[in-house]
């Protein structure tokens, strides 16, 4: 029987639910008459599992008064929204609450807008309700996110709409002008020119702003970009057309300019949409850790804000809690274990005792302890890493993109040709200043790099969207270009190459032979696993979790219902069929075998006279071997880990990575990359933990995982949205394809522009030729880019 709420297998055959969290959620949804939820739900149902221990944060700070009196509103991130049913159940359940006036989920932004009557604190009641049905509300307050969102306002979309309107209407007049030949009288032509001016001028002034601003900024920074020649062409063509209209001239270019703006803005808009989508995903993924600490003073405990923690304070850490500051353990129940993988990259829980140094960001796994703060949160190792990352980020060299490289040659070249044209007409052909100037301006207009400007963004949008479908988020378009130069790939071990969770490898059975102690494979693996799993499911320890996982994966039988007593940091104990069953440490299980070696990641079980040893290991990701073998053929691979020498060596040997370094600190990882960079290596760093963050920031291209920490996600340019390694191959493949297409696009656009240029220099260009050349070269570039998606 599977859980009624989340369809995961139930631990107990008699129960309808896998856990109390799911049971509560199911009852709530039914109580509000929303059971239709289960029929509407189209995403993976097993992801609905509700964590019964999940807590809510205080959200009152995100609340602001609404325009109505006595009303409040809040804009919050909501995580877990996956399909139509999620929107429906969240909105419906909130609207059934007294006081709620409006509840609206934004699916693209993964946010919730809530307006209610009553008081400010109500928000926490709503958040608790949403939490109970398996979604989570988080404050949207992060300054970085708000700043990023502001960049994506609707100005581009508005400019696009205006340019579309303008180019359509101007083109109507242009068709009449182009195809009438000499039949059209001067008066009619002037009228059409006048209307073109009337529509064209305000529209050009409005829609060209994004390009003019960007061109000005690039000039100020001393790096001319593609927007500069575009802006020059737009401005010159507009001035020329206005002049021509007022002086009853023959040609105007309002149609070309508005059409050019329209095409370019489509490119800009697509580019922005792709980045916005990626950014929203990334912001949803980043989690906000609770920031309070429990302090003991004069024998009393008090909860304070993390920012109030000072050196010398005595903090208490309960089981499952995150450690808030660096410090030294002063009191604890015998030995407890902490998970410090976030900081050090060690895959296995670490035992601590009185006097052990611990770091902020570690999680207490087994027993509560007290520690004396040596460094408050703002100076902890964790904070130092964050500062280091920020420093590297700000001092990073600008990468010059292909399009900008081209612009640096193209822009002066075009202006020199225009000058030469003027001189040629003026002095060689003796054509007079006006005619010569006209030819020079035509050169500048016709060489406007419309297709050139589209070449890179279109190829980029296509690659980013095709990678997004494969679960790879590219936060920064530069990364795609930089990927192509990579020759060295550096991997982190834990959670990058390995799964980062323990897996039960074997159960050994104690056997005595000729007075020798021997461990042999268990004669009845499934039976022993079942006994152990029935005990282990009552504990949250990583080793217990590994046993339960293995049992659920291999055996079909149910757990044995047992009354289990948990002895903190020792093990689990129960009675089964009148005999004592114990699982845990060696001493706890009363196993008196001492002349044998067993690794750190092991545990013991004793039942009747049987003595058993369980062995665990951190397994490689399912596709790690395949991907690394493939990469090994073209790139040099290095494994850089904070874990112990033996663990790293084992993984290196298993995967075939020749170069590996163990016991690296976050700082030494960064120094290592710095050294390689000095040897002119182009480095891709793949890692997930905070200990990788400085290294990620330094590397030329950085890749992280969606399951990693929020810091690494902010640093990394590329985020892989699943926990496999295969996307790295996709990434390299699509990057090289996209660079190829980009280069083809540039070549196509340049050939077109050269043809048009020869017409312009010889003074043969009419507005018709200009419009056809511009649109067809842009179209060709767009069509060529579509091949990336195939």
């Amino acid at each position, binding site marked *: 029987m599977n859980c009624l709420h989340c369809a995961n297998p139930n631990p107990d055959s008699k129960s309808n639910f896998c856990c109390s969290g799911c049971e509560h959620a199911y009852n709530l949804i039914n109580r509000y008459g929303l059971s239709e939820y289960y029929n509407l739900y189209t995403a993976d149902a097993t992801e609905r599992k509700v964590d019964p221990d999940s807590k809510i944060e205080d959200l009152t700070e995100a609340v602001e008064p609404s325009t109505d009196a006595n009303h409040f509103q809040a804009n919050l991130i909501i995580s877990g929204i996956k399909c139509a049913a999620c*929107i429906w159940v969240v909105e419906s359940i909130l609207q059934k609450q007294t006081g709620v006036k409006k509840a609206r989920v934004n*699916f*693209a932004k993964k946010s919730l807008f809530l307006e209610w009557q009553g008081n400010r604190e109500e928000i926490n009641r709503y958040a608790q309700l949403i939490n109970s049905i398996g979604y989570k509300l988080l404050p949207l307050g992060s300054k970085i996110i708000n700043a990023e969102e502001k960049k994506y306002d609707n100005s581009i979309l*508005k400019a696009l709409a205006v340019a579309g309107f303008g180019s*359509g*209407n101007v083109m109507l007049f242009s068709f009449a002008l182009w195809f009438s030949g000499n039949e059209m009288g001067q008066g009619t032509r002037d*009228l059409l020119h006048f209307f073109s001016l009337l529509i064209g001028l305000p529209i050009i002034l409005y829609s060209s702003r994004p390009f003019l601003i960007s061109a000005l900024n690039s000039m100020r920074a001393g790096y001319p970009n593609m927007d500069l020649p575009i802006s020059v062409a737009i401005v010159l063509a507009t001035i020329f057309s206005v002049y021509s209209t007022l002086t009853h001239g023959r040609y105007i270019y309002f149609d070309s300019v508005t059409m050019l703006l329209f095409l370019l803005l489509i490119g800009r808009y697509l580019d922005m949409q792709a980045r916005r989508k990626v950014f929203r995903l990334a912001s949803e993924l980043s989690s906000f850790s609770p920031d309070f600490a429990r302090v003991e003073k004069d024998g009393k405990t008090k909860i304070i804000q993390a920012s109030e923690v000072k050196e010398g304070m005595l903090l208490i850490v309960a089981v499952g809690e995150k450690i808030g500051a660096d410090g030294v353990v002063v009191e604890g129940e015998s030995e407890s274990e902490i998970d410090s993988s976030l900081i050090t990259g060690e895959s296995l829980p670490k035992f601590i005792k009185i006097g052990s140094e611990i770091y902020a960001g570690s999680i207490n796994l087994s027993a509560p302890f007290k520690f004396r703060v040596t460094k408050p949160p703002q100076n902890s190792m964790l904070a130092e890493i964050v500062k280091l990352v920020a420093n590297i980020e700000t001092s990073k060299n600008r990468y010059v993109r292909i399009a900008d490289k081209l612009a640096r040659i193209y822009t002066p070249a075009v202006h020199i040709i225009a000058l030469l044209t003027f001189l040629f007409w003026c002095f060689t052909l003796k054509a007079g200043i006006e005619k010569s100037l006209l030819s020079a301006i035509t050169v500048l207009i016709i060489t406007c790099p419309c297709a050139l400007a589209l070449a890179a963004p279109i190829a980029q949008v296509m690659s980013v969207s095709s990678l997004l479908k494969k679960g790879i988020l590219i936060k920064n378009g530069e990364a795609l270009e930089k990927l192509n130069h990579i020759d060295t790939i550096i991997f982190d071990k834990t959670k990058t190459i390995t799964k980062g969770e323990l897996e039960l490898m074997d159960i050994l059975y104690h056997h005595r032979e000729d007075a020798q102690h021997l461990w042999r494979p268990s004669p009845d693996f499934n039976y022993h696993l079942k006994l152990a799993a029935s005990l282990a499911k009552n504990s949250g320890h990583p080793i217990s979790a590994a046993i339960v996982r293995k049992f659920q994966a291999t055996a079909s039988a149910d757990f044995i219902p047992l009354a289990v007593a948990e002895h903190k940091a020792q093990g689990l104990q129960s009675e089964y069929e009148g005999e004592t069953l114990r699982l845990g440490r060696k001493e706890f299980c009363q196993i008196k075998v001492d002349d044998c070696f067993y690794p750190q990641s092991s545990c013991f079980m004793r039942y009747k006279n049987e003595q058993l040893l369980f062995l665990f290991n951190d397994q490689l990701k399912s596709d790690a071997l395949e991907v690394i073998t493939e990469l090994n053929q073209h790139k040099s691979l290095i494994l850089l880990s904070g874990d112990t020498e033996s663990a790293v060596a084992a993984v290196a040997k298993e995967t075939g990575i020749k170069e590996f370094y163990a016991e690296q600190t976050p700082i030494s990882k960064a120094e290592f990359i710095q050294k390689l960079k000095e040897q002119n290596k182009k480095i891709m760093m793949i890692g997930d933990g905070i200990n990788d963050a400085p290294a990620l920031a330094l590397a030329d291209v950085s890749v992280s995982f969606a399951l990693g920490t929020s810091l690494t996600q902010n640093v990394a340019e590329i985020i892989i949205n699943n926990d496999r390694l295969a996307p790295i191959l996709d990434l390299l493949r699509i990057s090289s394809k996209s660079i190829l297409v980009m280069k083809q696009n540039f070549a196509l656009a340049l050939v077109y522009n050269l043809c048009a240029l020869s017409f312009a220099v010889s003074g043969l260009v009419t507005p018709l030729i200009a419009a056809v050349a511009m649109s067809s070269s842009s179209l060709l570039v767009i069509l060529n880019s579509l091949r990336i998606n195939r």
Partner: protein
Amino acid sequence: MNILIFLIPITLIISLLGLAAFMWTIKSKQYEDMEGAAKRILFDKD
């Protein structure tokens, strides 16, 4: 060709109405959540 004096302003007014309508859709935030709109259509009520 005198008819152009009337026809051109008429086309302009009609297309300006279209532009105004599009601007209104932007202003009323209809492009903020296009995926959500596609999913909401599945709900029976509201």
